[in-house]
């Protein structure tokens, strides 16, 4: 089964078309990474799927339901989306920000019920933030902050999380920490994860399924072994890449590359 299907999806900013007639399937229970050069429209696809960007034509199906027929709060119970480097309100604590994830479930004046508190505590625990619950988000490091946003998404109790470049501005070890957290969520809790990633090797290392986009359409898709091949990377990124299988992870890695002349 697929978590997300798009048919004939078109996205445009004013008159300039970014994505045209996109047909994409995101498999359920897997980690999917979307890769592509700058300005290829990969973030736009993620936002359109996450209904934070209005698309021009076509349709997006979430678990085989047309998202335009679903109430936005109902979607928020099935799919969480984290934009690229979101900013927290000044002075908000970790616990308060994670509690925002309960918004779709709250009614009226919105006091947190016992069940809400349990789920928030669980989200903090899974992301190893329990100790920091009362700290102000402003005082955290970039890696911790990204974990707070992920915890907020967990508190939404969806089975699908979309992330736009979750590793931006993070150093090497924190990039890995965030991606391993997402990988754990996928393996242990069964989350379907879709993320746009800039770094090809990290994308190939953590993905079950990859989608490569260029110029607004999908150039190729499949397992990392199918996508991380020289001719595909040549077409998508205009690079002449040397790919080897990395022994520690068993995943394809681009060791070096030149520009295609």
């Amino acid at each position: 089964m697929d978590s997300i299907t798009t048919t004939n999806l078109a996205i445009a900013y004013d008159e300039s078309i970014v994505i045209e007639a996109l047909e994409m399937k995101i498999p359920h229970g897997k980690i999917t990474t979307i890769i592509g050069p700058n300005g290829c429209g990969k973030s736009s696809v993620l936002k359109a799927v996450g209904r934070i960007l209005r698309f021009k034509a076509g349709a997006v199906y979430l678990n085989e339901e047309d998202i335009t027929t679903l109430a936005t709060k109902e979607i928020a119970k099935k799919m969480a989306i984290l934009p690229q480097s979101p900013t927290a309100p000044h002075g908000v604590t970790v616990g308060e920000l994670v509690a925002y994830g309960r918004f779709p479930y709250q009614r009226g004046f919105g006091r947190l019920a016992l069940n809400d508190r349990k789920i928030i505590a669980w989200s903090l625990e899974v992301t190893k933030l329990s100790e920091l619950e009362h700290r102000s988000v402003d005082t955290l490091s970039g890696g911790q902050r990204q974990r707070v946003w992920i915890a907020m998404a967990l508190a939404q109790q969806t089975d699908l999380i979309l992330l736009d470049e979750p590793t931006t501005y993070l150093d090497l070890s924190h990039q890995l920490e965030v991606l391993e957290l997402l990988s754990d969520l996928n393996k242990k809790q069964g989350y379907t994860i879709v993320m746009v990633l800039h770094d090809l090797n990290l994308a190939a290392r953590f993905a079950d399924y990859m989608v490569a986009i260029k110029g607004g359409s999908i150039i190729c898709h499949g397992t990392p072994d199918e996508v991380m091949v020289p001719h595909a990377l040549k077409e998508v990124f205009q690079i002449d890449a040397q790919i080897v299988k990395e022994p520690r992870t068993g995943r394809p890695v681009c060791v070096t590359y030149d520009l295609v002349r």
Partner: protein
Amino acid sequence: MGSTGRQKKKKNSKIIAVLLVLGVLLVLSIIFSMKSGYTHLTFHDLLRILLGGGSDKENLVLFTFRMPRIIIAMLVGAGLALSGCIIQGIARNALADPGLLGINAGAGLMVVLFVLLFPTKTALSIFTLPFLALIGAGLAAVLIYLLAYKNLEGLSPLRLILTGVGMQVGISAAMIVLVILLDESQFNFVTVWQAGRIWGASWKFVIALLPWLLVLVPYVFFKARVLDVLGAGEEIALGLGVAVEQERRILLAAAVALAASCVAVSGNISFVGLIAPHLARRLVGPGHQILLPCCALTGALLVSISDIIARTLVQPSEIPTGIVVAVVGAPYFLYLLAKSRR
């Protein structure tokens, strides 16, 4: 677990302490305000009059002149503070304030027209006043929204402030032009309104203002969670299932209605909507469920104290309350502006 539990308790007791202290200060300011004025009343006098033992003159001073004015000052302070807090929340801009944005001025223009059309203050005309003010403030707000809104970037904070300040200056200029048409007493009224003198200090005005606040304030408290989530940015809010555009418009309309109904009776008091949310945020943090009540208390206290100063500093004359607020508010605004540029 133990340490986080303790931290939480500490935070809760701090919030309760803050609200208590603000409440006590407000009560003290009410008592002080009842005592002071042209006729000074001792604490003993005050008790006696409140218990029904005052002379006709004393009753007149306390129940007809001072009390409605004290109540108006508090209500207006709370209303303007909440209005500022909402606008700051939806614009994600700490420098927003209904006065600075020209929303008060829009209301003022209508108040001036009102004075031109109804030179005598009949009861009916007093109740139409908030509606007229709302129309003026609403038009100003819509105009600012349209001018500051850009299709792809949305509502840019800086453009909002610049548009608002421009709007405020423009409307003030229009008022000055109107002033040429007025006779001397009307002219006096307009200058008094612009300086922010609480002119509608009678029970009729309290009754004209109260229903507005009784409807709007609970509604705004009801929207506390939405304001919280909007503070995390448009994309996060959309992702959490907030109908962002719709909520923003409704909340802006509530903020405009709060500001308009308040300044209709109080004159153009600026800066309360700027300072009160700031102080409140420093005291209790950014969560609107507690921030909003704290903000209302802070605003009420601020205008209440300013009004005491306004009434007593240069007796037997008085300074417009808005000027007293501005003496504190303008430097605070500049301080925030300087801080935000860093």
